[in-house]
């Protein structure tokens, strides 16, 4: 059997179905007059999912187009950037964190450093006032508390 994306997906789904079922069987269920209970529905879904996953393993479709190494690196960089953005969001405040995230994102999507920086600055400051004054959302001020 050749390893294809669909076969891997099928195996992962089988694992998921098993996990769903095992967890469901471990629940401590208090007595209730309801005949079905919280267990039956997930168990049924797990059964259905495992059948479909088996079909997928036996008869996989076309393999699709997967990103090559350079693109995969870039994808990981975007993801890492979004994680860092989330981590800094409250720490250093909305404006600096967004400035950083927007600038680097623009750069990753093909802008020159100059254009990226202008995008970042305009977007971070502009959106801050749009969200806070315009829509009444409170955003973390971070280090800039008291300045803006």
């Amino acid at each position: 059997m050749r390893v294809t994306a669909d076969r891997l997906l099928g195996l992962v789904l089988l694992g998921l179905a098993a996990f769903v079922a095992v967890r469901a069987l471990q629940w401590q269920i208090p007595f209730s007059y309801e005949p079905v209970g919280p267990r039956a529905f997930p168990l049924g879904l797990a059964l259905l999912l495992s059948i479909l996953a088996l079909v997928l393993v036996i008869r996989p479709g076309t393999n699709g187009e997967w990103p090559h190494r350079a693109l995969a690196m870039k994808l990981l960089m975007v993801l890492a950037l979004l994680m860092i953005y989330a981590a800094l969001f409250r720490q250093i405040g909305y404006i600096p964190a967004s400035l950083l995230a927007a600038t680097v994102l623009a750069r990753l999507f093909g802008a020159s450093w100059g254009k990226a920086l202008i995008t970042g600055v305009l977007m971070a400051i502009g959106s801050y006032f749009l969200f806070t004054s315009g829509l009444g959302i409170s955003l973390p001020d971070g280090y800039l508390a008291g300045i803006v």
Partner: protein
Amino acid sequence: MFDFLIHGFAVALTPMNLGLAFLGALLGTLFGSLPGIGPINGIAILMPLAYTLGLPAESALILLAGIYTGSEYGGRMSSILLNVPGDAGAVMSTLDGHPLAKKGLAGPALGLSAVSSFVGATIAIIGLTLFAPLLAEVAVMFGPAEFFALMVFAFASMSVMMGKDPLKTAIGAILGILIGTVGVDSGTGVMRYSFGMAELYDGIDFVVMIIGLFAISEILLMLEHGNRRDGQDDSIPPLGRVFVSLKEILACKGAMGRSGLLGFIIGVLPGTGASVASAVAYTTEKRISDKDDTFGQGDMRGLAAPEAANNASAAGSFVPMLTLGIPGSGTTAVLLGALMLYNITPGPMMFTERPEVAGGLIASLYIGNVVLLALNLPLAGLFARVLTIPRWVLVPGIALLAFVGVYQLHSDLTAIYLMLIIGILGYLLRKLGISLAPVILGYVLGGLMEQNLRRALSISGGDVGILWQSGISVGLWIAAAALLVLPWLLPKLLAGRTRHNRTG
């Protein structure tokens, strides 16, 4: 019988709601025109912001419905001008739309698609006005067992009709339902799949789910499309004359009428949305009118048909959503989730209990449709400019909107991390050929499905027979079974008959 509509117009014509319908139409067209952002992404990104405005339910729904129909309008821009469909529903519009643009008729093509969208949507909204109250009266007879059967039918029709691969559509729906089971079980208080995380006790928040699934995965996907050159030139062809002539419109009136009706009927079926409607309308129209073999080379009727059907199905999918609480498409599933945020469960009682919501929405569809035509005919050139916004402006903008949209829910960072994880999941699913519409439908409907099953079995004291006791539920079970079996059986039967004919 049409009291709800009169009531609805009274609601929709207040200055604020009129303004919201206008704002929604404008924002929707803009977001729909953005390269790569279809209706569902547009609603996903804008919904949390609409929520922060603190609007009453009917106003929020009017705004969101405006965004929905507006983005269906906007989606055609990139199909016609760049040959890049904004979403699955717009694929058919590229077939004749782009050749028209290449012939120097981009302006008239945009005008024609605005007019045919208007005609298709008008047919469907009238259909909605007539049929929704009737269906609501039938739906009052639905008990939990009938609702459970209806949802089985909805998932069956979705698996067969939506997407290319029924197997993967079904898998997507099950994944969505499973994600919906996370959190405390309302019947017994048992924690399901929450891994002891307090943030998951209430389940995965709807806004986190849709923004992660659609907006974040879109960012990742755009990175790929940006790096790959498809040999398409990104320059916009000149629009030519801006207005479409009456003669051209009249030449397409048959195509618009037929496709509008078809689109409405397909839109009403649960689980089948704009992509099926426009494909069926295009192929039907080609069969009826393509006498000189001009379809595919820039025939105006080949553009009018999918555009009319596309918008008709958008309005048609409100019928099952408003009357049965079963969304007809991925996008209406998002709207249904938005209603649930307001503690309104759409269903048969909505026309009697909350006529301002049901009627206001339908009335605002009439108004929004006129607003859209008025916006789109003269401003097509302006909206076309939106297409030239480079990715390096678009993507940071989406990222900021997504983060703020989720953060403002509970000022909580866990929700943002959860959004990113769901985004990665969404990206992987899309790469694996599992479209996201069934996932979101499963997520929205799964909880209702389980509730109805458990309620039905509580009534019968555990006897499964209750699930097929009434005529309605038996009919639905048979319809669901037929849907699953026929696509597999029909070709074999037909093949058998032709063989028989040949020998006999």
